[in-house]
């Protein structure tokens, strides 16, 4: 069961249908095809579930017309998108306007190739998997700029500028918080990082990076940076509907708009997959007695939980202001991640020096907590009871 | 494998294109871009020589390029900040028009 898909692939490869020369190509295709099918399908489901979840959070029912419980809403939305007219503004830069969604989708699809979905289920086991992930991901900023600039629309340009500033600012904490894991794992390969998180302490507690002080702090920082990097609420001001209409893709309609939408969600999935591999133990089961379930099941279960939290956050938090966003990135996230690197080193060397586990926890966790409290103080809003001169 | 000559030729042409751009373009930003191109041509040479050299396991060329990339990034940041400062002062980024020395 665990190796179901791997065996399936080998079985299909063993057919005599393919000439030997074509085998590598077929093998690659068999790896690519599931990614191209599974994740867009997940995107479709996620849009429906997100709308239903947001509805429930706001005491509404959410979409419930198309299909049982509205589950086919994505098909209706998709059909609507595809049949819409594809409008290119007259003043737009036609080539760039066309290229922008393509440049967005391709790198994101590429970034799926280094994530381990299960035991021995990784499309490409790169030596520098994380570096590849971030290198490829940096092209999305360019695509956002292309979309915003080529539309020849001030809202689009504003959205693109906001988005690029935000993505550059939050890429730092994102990368530095992943760096702690790389530092302690001693490898850039995601497969090895996941394998190192296998095994159970005292037979039941999984040895995920999450269950260390630096891992917990790192995961939270990574999570917040992920929200910003994928333009999710509360950091969705690049596409703030109420301020700049829809940000960089105002001038897109029909299928190209759908591609932007798809790209955003695929980016979210990819970066969540990275977070799962780095901090949440990848495809490892959360309890020792649950290892009989297949590894890929655990990966996708964790992904589903993360996505549910994303929806939950979207339903809860209001949007940040641009200056709050930048202050938070540079005055809170960056110092915290840098401190986290130091704490991770301290954790490692205290382990080498043979300290007691509880002592290590207290010291490392204490340092992080004190820094969190001190740095977070300037971000707390002091709500005082408002007094009115005339209204009372 | 492609002969080393091909890589060197490509790097030489890239360097010349970058040099030509840096010398003939009006916009200061493109002058900077030309300099970046020249740096990249040099990097390509480093990597090619490292790969074709006698001791690829020594990693000298790779290290040089890693540092070169870091320094190029720093240079781009400072250069663009300078261009911004110049733009604020002269309201232009064209190199021909920035000639006064008094502030």
């Amino acid at each position, binding site marked *: 069961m665990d190796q179901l898909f791997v065996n399936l692939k080998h079985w299909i490869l063993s057919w005599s249908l393919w000439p030997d020369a074509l085998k590598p190509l077929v093998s690659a295709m068999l790896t690519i095809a599931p990614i191209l099918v599974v994740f867009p399908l997940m995107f479709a489901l996620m849009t429906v579930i997100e709308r239903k979840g947001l509805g429930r959070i706001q005491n509404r029912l959410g979409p419930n017309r198309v299909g049982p419980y509205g589950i086919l809403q994505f098909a209706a939305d998709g059909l609507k998108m595809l049949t819409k007219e594809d409008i290119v503004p007259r003043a737009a830069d036609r080539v760039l306007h066309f290229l922008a969604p393509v440049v967005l989708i391709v790198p994101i699809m590429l970034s799926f190739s280094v994530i381990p979905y299960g035991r021995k289920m990784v499309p490409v086991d790169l030596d520098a998997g994380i570096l590849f992930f971030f290198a490829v991901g940096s092209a999305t900023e360019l695509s956002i700029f292309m979309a915003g600039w080529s539309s020849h629309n001030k809202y689009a340009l504003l959205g693109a500028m906001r988005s690029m500033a935000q993505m550059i600012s939050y890429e730092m904490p994102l990368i530095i918080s992943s760096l702690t894991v790389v530092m302690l794992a001693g490898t850039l390969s995601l497969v090895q990082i996941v394998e190192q998180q296998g095994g159970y302490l005292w037979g039941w507690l999984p040895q995920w990076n999450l269950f260390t002080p630096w891992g917990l702090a790192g995961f939270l920082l990574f999570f917040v940076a992920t929200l910003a990097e994928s333009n999710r609420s509360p950091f969705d001001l690049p596409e703030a509907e109420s301020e700049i209409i829809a940000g960089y893709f105002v001038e897109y309609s029909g299928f190209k708009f759908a591609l932007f939408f798809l790209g955003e969600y695929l980016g979210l999935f990819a970066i969540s997959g990275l977070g799962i591999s780095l901090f949440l133990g990848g495809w490892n089961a959360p309890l020792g007695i649950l290892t009989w379930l297949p590894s890929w099941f655990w990966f996708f279960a964790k992904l589903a939980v993360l996505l549910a939290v994303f929806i939950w956050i979207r339903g809860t938090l209001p949007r940040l202001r641009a200056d709050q966003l930048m202050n938070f990135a540079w005055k809170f996230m960056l110092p915290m991640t840098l401190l986290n690197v130091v704490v991770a080193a301290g954790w490692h060397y205290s382990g080498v020096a043979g300290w007691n586990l509880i002592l290590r926890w207290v010291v490392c966790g204490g340092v992080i907590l004190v820094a969190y409290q001190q740095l977070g103080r300037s971000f707390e809003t002091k709500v005082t009871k408002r007094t009115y001169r005339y209204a009372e | 494998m492609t002969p080393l000559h091909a890589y060197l030729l490509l790097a030489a042409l890239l360097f010349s294109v970058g040099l030509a751009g840096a010398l003939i373009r009006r916009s200061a930003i493109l002058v900077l871009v030309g300099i970046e191109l020249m740096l990249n041509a040099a990097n390509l040479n480093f990597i090619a020589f490292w*790969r074709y050299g006698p001791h690829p396991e020594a990693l000298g060329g790779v290290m040089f390029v890693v540092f070169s990339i870091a320094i190029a990034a720093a240079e781009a940041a400072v250069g663009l900040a300078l261009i911004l400062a110049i733009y604020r002062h002269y309201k232009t980024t064209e190199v021909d028009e920035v000639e006064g020395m008094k502030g």
Partner: protein
Amino acid sequence: MQPIPEPTTIGPVFLVLSFVTLAGAVAAMSLRNLVHCVLCLVVTFGGLSALYLRLDAEFVGLAQIFVYVGAVAILIVFAILLTRSGEVLGGVFSTGWLAGLTVAALVAVTLVVAIGRTDLRAAPESAVVKAPVRQVGDALMKEYVVPLEVTALLLTGALIGAAILAMPDRRSK
């Protein structure tokens, strides 16, 4: 790991990559619209990174994309937008363009002639070599630790310097 030495011909992949790289560079240096120039520059960077990957320098190839496409290109784009120089209205080339072009052409001819006259080995000595990321990291932390620290200092200095340079001058107003 093929024991047979590969023929020393210029492969089609190399031809395509070098064409893309050079065409991107030429376009980046000659187009009128600065934003187009930067995007062509990105194409060049991408082509160069592919060449690095073909030369078995995995780490450098990825770092090239990471730094140049992800950071330098974005920086340049920001500079273009902040200085409102996207659309060039006047002439593209500076007054001394003929002299500049001549110098560049002379440099090109010199370099090409020099390369043509030099006797270089056509194929690498070791058929397959990888620069594993681990080794690069080890080398950075052991033999090259002093340059690494100096680079870190330089980057910090550049960060602060760039921020100060780009800060609006409050005293003058």
